[in-house]
């Protein structure tokens, strides 16, 4: 009954978020890099891209982009 995407956000630092739906369990393995274990079949939903279907357990990781000013990798955000 709301217009927000429902589910567990596996991109908490992103503006739009990426949400896991229909999964048995989602475990946060790494707070800093936002790595999650998604147990069982699930669906990854976001506002900015098409939805992805996962047919079994998978690991969600985050793209790292290189910042030429700091010479460091940082989490990509959208």
């Amino acid at each position: 009954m709301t217009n927000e995407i429902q589910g567990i956000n596996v991109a908490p630092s992103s503006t739009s978020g990426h949400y896991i739906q229909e999964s048995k369990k989602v475990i946060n393995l790494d707070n800093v890099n936002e790595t999650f274990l998604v147990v069982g079949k699930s669906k990854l939903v976001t506002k900015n891209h098409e939805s992805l279907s996962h047919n079994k357990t998978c690991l969600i990781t985050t793209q790292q982009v290189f910042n030429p000013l700091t010479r460091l990798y940082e989490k990509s955000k959208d």
Partner: protein
Amino acid sequence: MKTLKDFTPEIQNKIPSYINNALQGVFDGGRYNNFNLNNAVEAVNYNYEICGFKKPLVLVAENPYESQLLFNFVWELLSPNSQLRSQLDSQLNSQLDSQIDIQLYSQLRSQIDSQLDSQLRSQLYRQLDNQLYSQLDRQLDSQLRSQLYRQIDSQLYSQLDNQLRNQLYSQLRSQLDNQLRSQLDRQIDSQLNKQLDSQLNSQLYSQLDRQLRSQIYSQLDSQIDIQLYDQLRSQLYSQLDNQLRNQLYSQIDSQLDRQLDRQLDRQLDRQIDSQLRSQLYKYNNQYLFTLNIYSDCYYNWYEFIRKEFNIKIDEELNNKFQKIFKLQRESGVYSAIFSESLCVVSKYPQRVVRNNNFELNNINGEAVKWGYTNELTKLECYYVNGFNITKELFQKVVEQRLTIDEFFKESNEETKSSILALMEQKFGREYVVDFFKSDLEEVDTYIDKKDDKYLEGTTNGMNIGVYTLFKGNINNTEISYVRCYCPSTDRMFYLGVEDTHTNAKDAIASLYRVPLALKNGIEAIYRQGEKFSTFFNNVITKKLEQNEYSKEDLTTYTSLTGDEYFKLLKWEY
């Protein structure tokens, strides 16, 4: 029981007319122009009546931002320990001082002036002026202040109207009649005062405030849910089979939802975050399916099912259903914020501009043009392909003032992509090429030709799987970027990579991360924007599920070579 067989082509062909009906007047300002206060009040009252509440006071705002301010302002003003009220008082007092000075001083001076010649006047003024002024000020300050206060009070309030607080206050005063105001005051005060004593600190107060409000909202929402939504749903759904229901839902509901205000919610939240003073900082994300922009979606959705599949609904329920949605449609209410005694509604936008994908998009100005009562309550909505950007950034891009340095300093990839999309739409692709040409040199391009089965859900465009490595030097800093395109939206991205890379394939692969301990068991990689989903062989999957890896195993990352990455990459959106 209705099944997919009943979903005939004739019925399917009627879907567009239901969608058009739900959206009529939303984008072209029709509903804004047809806003009717009496109808709005009637619609609000009926919702409250269904829930067993008394008629609330209804205030009208020109946009959702203004409605948030108005609601918070009233709430704050009527609450005990109101910071806002004390601020108003202090502002009033300081203005009062200067008013007294001006009025009395000028009166005295004109009387004295008329009775003295200019030489004497100058001399006397030099000697007496300061003394006289300070005496008057001191004496009058205590004796006349209260009398003048009463006389000037109303004038001062109107003079404050260039400030948000007073604008809202005036608006409130003009909309409130005494009876309703005192009723509201009594109700809220008594509710709060009973629960809060003077010893409660502000933290506790705000916690109670939140609880109180959320209870009211949840009561409203759940009561209407129970009375209408759930009953209707169960009656309709019991007569449709599961397959038909899913198909109908995906065809109608998702289209409507995507076209409506999901995109606006986030912007509104941000704007209120950044602009509101602390005491007005509250975003009331409340939702009642019978009294906002989505009401027509629900109505048309149910009407489509009810009429086209000839579903029988209890007459009394159907009458209630028809009435509540008719009232919303005729009211011109875009959204509403509720409390037991107060309801602030917002009108629809005056105009909405979208692209062919129904995303909010305007390269010539605001994509959503709202009305506003005051400059400070403006809600300015700039969007490019459904992505909200600030007015400042929008203007910089369209006035060609954005530098390449500023572009690369932007940390949000979607914002960067929106800048490029705006440049491309406004000035053409050549402009985008020229924007980078003086600072970036194209080094290498890699094309990942995808199997057709992995193109489902993409644009099928020619940019899918095309990665180009650029290198350059900006302000004495070596930079390298890979240009790529989102397969599901064709948006262009420039992603930073280390400047040691010499080919696009390895460069883009270097952005993928996987725990080193799991690297050798990867079966497939899917990608959605900046998130990767990695699937492993059964041994690793089982160990992961059984929590057999150490924290260190799972947080020590590595990347893949270009060859390794593209061999495993399947779905990409």
